[in-house]
């Protein structure tokens, strides 16, 4: 682009006269010149940096003439374009250092192994997984079998025996002394266990005796209660049997009370007389506190009255006579 064209376009876009546009562009570049002439760096944002570069003096030999020439010191302006300009003007994608590193690595990976190949490899590997597992299991089993066989074999045992015997010789010990030590230790252990057993037996026997004594006491108490009950029942039933002139026998039964049971009904059923409910109540006085309130599931003693008829015997005697 020419200088004129540049001024024209600038005037068009900025909507300024041609002269003012030219003046602005002139001042723009003259300021850069002034900055560089002061040996200063000129930074313009979004455009780049201008800096003076010093080339030192040189002595050169001319190849054609063969004369020696002295080139004086030079200062040349150098332009470093900004990243924005470089990205806009260049055909390649410009990235930061970090992005470039990642981009390079990704490119390398992509170039080395294409994605389709990776997928295929994974699918093949998946097919072989069960075979691999079976192989692993077989390998472990084989290793166990071999180790077991080796331990069992005579050669291995002899080898270990030799190693142990050598070690013992170095320490100044023999198998007999070790056996004695082991036996003594073993006997100590046995003695201790026996002592402990005796101690346990003594403690348990004393406790067992106490339990037996308490059991016997409780049984005696139960017998006393039974006897008392029998005495009470006999006292109750005797007058009735005397009235009827019949012999009676009494048996105690444990009865579980059911729904709709009453002492009146129970005495009628088992004791032949409903008015004996008082006796029933007195015999189970410890359990039944109110005779009108008995509950299902409650267990009570019922004296069963069994009557024995003597009238038949008397009749037989009378007939004989």
């Amino acid at each position: 682009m020419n200088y004129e064209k540049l001024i024209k376009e600038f005037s068009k876009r900025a909507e300024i006269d041609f002269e003012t546009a030219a003046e602005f562009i002139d001042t723009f570049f003259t300021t850069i010149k002034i900055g560089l002439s002061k040996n200063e760096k000129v930074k313009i944002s979004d455009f780049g940096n201008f800096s003076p570069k010093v080339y030192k003096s040189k002595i050169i030999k001319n190849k054609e003439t063969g004369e020696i020439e002295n080139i004086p010191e030079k200062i040349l302006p150098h332009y470093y374009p900004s990243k924005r300009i470089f990205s806009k003007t260049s055909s390649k994608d410009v990235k930061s250092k970090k992005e470039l590193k990642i981009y390079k690595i990704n490119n390398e990976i992509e170039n080395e192994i294409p994605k389709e190949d990776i997928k295929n490899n994974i699918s093949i590997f998946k097919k072989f997984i069960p075979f691999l597992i079976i192989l692993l299991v077989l390998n472990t089993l084989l290793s166990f079998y071999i180790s077991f066989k080796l331990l069992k074999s005579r050669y291995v045992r002899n080898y270990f025996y030799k190693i142990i015997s050598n070690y013992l010789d170095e320490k100044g010990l023999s198998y007999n002394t070790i056996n004695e030590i082991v036996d003594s230790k073993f006997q100590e252990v046995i003695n201790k266990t026996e002592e402990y057993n005796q101690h346990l037996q003594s403690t348990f026997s004393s406790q067992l005796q106490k339990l037996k004594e308490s059991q016997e006491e409780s049984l005696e108490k139960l017998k006393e209660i039974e006897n008392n009950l029998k005495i009470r029942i006999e006292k109750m039933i005797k007058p009735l049997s005397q009235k009827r002139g019949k012999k009676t026998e009494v048996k105690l039964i444990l009865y579980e009370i059911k729904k709709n049971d009453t002492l009146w009904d129970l005495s009628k059923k088992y004791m032949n007389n409903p008015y004996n409910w008082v006796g029933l109540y007195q015999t189970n006085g410890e359990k039944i506190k109110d005779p009108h309130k008995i509950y299902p599931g409650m267990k009570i003693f019922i004296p069963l009255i069994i009557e024995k008829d003597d009238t038949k015997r008397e009749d037989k005697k009378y007939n004989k006579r």
Partner: protein
Amino acid sequence: MTSKEFINFISKKLNLSKKDTRRYSKLLIEILIDSIKKENQVEILGFGKFLKNKNDKIILQPDKEFIQEINQK
């Protein structure tokens, strides 16, 4: 010279506001970039040429007058 100082210097010289100078300078830079993109070079009288290198890098090819001016001072 920073970009702030640069804009202040131009605005003082041309009696323009800082806002306008910033706008104009941005416009100029955009025109320069577009022209380099299209034609690969921009010529500025008394300053030099902005060229594109083989490696897509922009270089300044300074004029003789410009070099003389710097070296004289």
